[in-house]
């Protein structure tokens, strides 16, 4: 494989979810710079992916009754997986997943408060399809995937799902609620060690009156959920922080009339978004996501990314662009070193192995055992990444998913492998050209040994139907395949 191809493949694994053979062929005609531009400027590509659900040629879905991704959470999960597999805007889905982990919000708690169908609406509804035009949190992240963090923080602070998730709906002047204020500083902006307990109390007071309004009954089909600023629940006194809030260095949000008190939250969010601590933290998170979780970033590189973030009004797109164009990202030494997330693993396995006759419904159970239940992260800090994805139980789940997929694709794989039927080695080479993996000689030798074991090779359809899925299972279930 030419180096250029290797770099494009690396880009597609990191900026997207890997590539099907057709996608790889299309991207391979582009220069690296053009491939980066195509991924980043995705708004130039019309977003038609949802219209392909249920069409021939694409992965299927499984649901009880009509497919209802706006009101049934398992269907919402399947729609998102479908998008990851088939979207022509892979970076948009990749960034949406990033924000889902960054602002990790759990469906279950919301369902407990507002019932399952409405919780699904609050997490996943597409406004154009919702009877009340409700926009789910994940749709919001899709819309703002490469936008500014300041805008995202504000949208999240007013997002109905978040208002329920971190109890903002109960934040009143008599009893300020600390949950959102704490996580805003600990997880969404500055980070642990860069705020004090008294900052938490002050932030709780800042957001008093930032509540949730529900119009209509929960038992009806389409109550609307919206953010409301309740001036009579806002605590109006001054709030002082341990860090600057205003450009002049002032650390105190002044006392304001209740009617003007919503400005407190806007001031705090604007300040937090543009703090250098936040800039470095976001840059470090994006570095970990796209470049490496295991090689500590060069502080100069993080500072460079943080500067780009601050110079561009907290915009994320220029930061991501700078990462893709950096030597750090393109260094061959970082290729195949990042532990794949479970959804990255299953989506890439499907894109590379094949999906004709397979369904996103078959992915849901295995993903839970692998440790990533979409729309239901374990807590507000999101999933533990890196090595934490790999325990003996979760690795068995990956290996067993590889078996399920290979078994399902048995005939497709065998048919595709007929071009390579002359020897077991040719069949192995064919699969290694299709499945992106970097195997060393010892593993190659084991795979070849398996391909030739237990039979006298004739290359018959029957033999291909045994060995092609057997090899796909072993490769996709190998340690080597778990890194991207």
């Amino acid at each position, binding site marked *: 494989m030419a180096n250029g191809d290797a770099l494009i493949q690396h880009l597609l694994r990191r900026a997207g979810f890997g590539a099907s053979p057709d996608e790889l062929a299309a991207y391979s005609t582009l220069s690296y710079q053009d491939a980066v531009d195509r991924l980043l400027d995705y708004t130039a590509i019309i977003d038609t992916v949802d219209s392909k659900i249920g069409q021939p040629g694409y992965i299927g879905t499984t649901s009880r009754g009509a497919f209802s991704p706006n009101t049934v959470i398992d269907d919402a999960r399947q729609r998102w997986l479908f998008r990851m597999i088939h979207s022509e805007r892979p970076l948009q889905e990749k960034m949406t997943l990033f924000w889902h982990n960054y602002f990790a919000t759990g469906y279950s708690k919301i369902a407990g408060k507002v019932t399952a169908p409405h919780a699904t609406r609050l997490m996943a509804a597409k406004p154009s399809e919702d009877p009340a035009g409700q926009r789910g949190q994940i749709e919001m992240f899709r819309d703002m995937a490469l936008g500014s963090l300041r805008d995202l923080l504000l949208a999240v602070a007013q997002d109905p799902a978040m208002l329920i998730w971190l*109890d903002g709906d*109960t934040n*009143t002047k*008599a*009893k*300020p*609620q*600390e*949950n959102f204020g*704490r996580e805003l500083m*600990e997880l969404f902006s500055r980070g*642990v060690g860069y705020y004090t*307990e008294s900052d*938490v109390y002050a932030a709780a007071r800042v957001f008093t009156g930032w509540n949730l309004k529900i119009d209509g009954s929960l038992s009806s089909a389409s109550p609307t959920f919206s953010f409301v600023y309740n001036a009579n629940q806002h605590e109006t006194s001054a709030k002082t922080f341990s860090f600057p809030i205003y450009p002049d260095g002032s650390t105190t949000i002044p006392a304001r009339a209740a009617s003007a008190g919503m400005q407190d939250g806007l001031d705090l969010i604007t300040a937090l978004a543009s703090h250098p601590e936040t800039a470095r933290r976001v840059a470090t998170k994006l570095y970990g996501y796209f470049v490496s979780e*295991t090689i500590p970033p060069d502080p100069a590189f993080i500072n460079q990314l943080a500067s780009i973030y601050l110079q561009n009004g907290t915009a994320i797109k220029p930061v991501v662009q700078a990462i893709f164009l950096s030597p750090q990202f393109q260094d061959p030494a970082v290729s*195949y*070193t*990042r532990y794949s997330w479970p959804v990255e693993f299953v989506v890439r396995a499907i894109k590379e192995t094949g999906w004709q006759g397979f369904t996103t419904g078959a992915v849901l159970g295995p993903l839970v*055992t692998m*440790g990533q239940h979409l729309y239901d992260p*374990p*807590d*507000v*800090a999101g999933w*533990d990444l890196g*090595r*934490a994805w*790999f*325990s*003996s*139980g*979760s*690795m*068995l*789940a990956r*290996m*067993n998913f590889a*078996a*399920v997929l*290979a*078994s399902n694709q*048995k005939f497709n794989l065998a048919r595709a492998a007929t071009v390579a039927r002359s020897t077991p080695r040719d069949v192995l080479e064919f699969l290694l050209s299709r499945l992106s993996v970097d195997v*060393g000689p*010892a*593993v190659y030798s*084991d*795979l070849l*040994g*398996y391909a030739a*074991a*237990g039979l006298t090779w004739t290359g018959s359809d029957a033999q291909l139907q*045994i060995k092609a899925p*057997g090899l796909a*299972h*072993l490769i996709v279930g*190998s*340690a*080597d395949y*778990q*890194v991207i």
Partner: protein
Amino acid sequence: MSITRRAFIKNGVTAFTVGVTAPAFLSDLARSQAASSSRNLVVLDLSGGNDGLSLLVPYTDAFYYSRRPTLAIPAGLVLQVGTDVSGKALGLHPRLTGLRDIFNQGRLALIQRVGYENSSRSHFSGTDIWEAANPSNPQGSGWVGRYLATLPAPLDPLIAWNTTGETPLAFQASSVPVASIPSLSSYAFSSPNSGAEAARERAAAASIASHVPIDRPQVAFVGTTVQGALATLDRVASVATYKPSLAYPNNGFGQALQAVAGALAQGVGTKVFWVQTGGFDTHASQDTTGDNGAYVRLMATLNDGLTAFYNDLRNLGLLNDTLLLSFSEFGRRINENGSRGTDHGAASVMIAMGGAVRGGLYGTAPSLAPDPQNPTLENSGNDVHYETDFRTVYARVIDNWLGGDSVAVLGGNFRKSGIEFV
């Protein structure tokens, strides 16, 4: 059956090259390690920050009632467990009837006001601190893992059994394998082929995993995980056949405890287990007494699971070999908030249960008088201040139960008198 045995440590990962059907050697190893002591430890994580004041209620403290107008449990409802050494009367949450029975049998210890200086109010830092047993640098390895690392190497891959999907920091340490088994039924090797071909795939998978590329630490780490999985499959399958002597609750916590009892009953050689039950982050609608109240449901899960586990082990004759120890990342604020819940606090209560436990109340309850000078409180009288460092509890378990050296494991001498619960 021939088995190659080649253990080495590289980049913090232990690697074995083992034959496909490893269990004979491994169970010999397991037996030899278990032979030194049949004692085991079950660590229970009550995740979210458990409200110790609702679990062990200071029902004679007037400030408990004035500071918690809707959440305080009426004195008439608590399950009285006598007075602590300071003379303060205490009662268990009314839903903990099974635990009260175990308390009355002298096999349940309640250790009050456990925590540490400058208690973290962050779930994530707090949990890491408790698991690492290191408030200043809570990362890298955990207290149980460091204890296991002191046992003779190589460690059996089933020495540590985690019933959740993610390996807890508490069990992690260089060269310590941890088997994570969230579900017994899915802990198996499947294949697109059957019969002899499936066996060839399993043999190939084992061989592939035996190559640990030293220049590729990520692949080496995952490969070691695959080895651990393949080496433990057959013994875990034997646990799946365990028929308990009584019915466990049909929830995740109950099923996890049933798996632990099964592993003990089948004698698979595991020394430490990790179980977890969550939902303790009761910021809103904590409801401590309603039929379907949030905290009542938490206590029901806890009580019913632990009671089944205790009685099952008693029926198996394994009670004296087992110590269960619970922790939570922090307690909760004394005053209830405007959402009828409680925010993040500091010190809380730990539970120890088992046949060798000296039951009773340890430590002293806080006075809840909202006075900034009140020495049993902190944060201007808002939170419970710790009396016993959590590492003192760990030290007791390491030294007096596991037979280890707590000074080495904890990086300091935390031994203290007054909490001789085991």
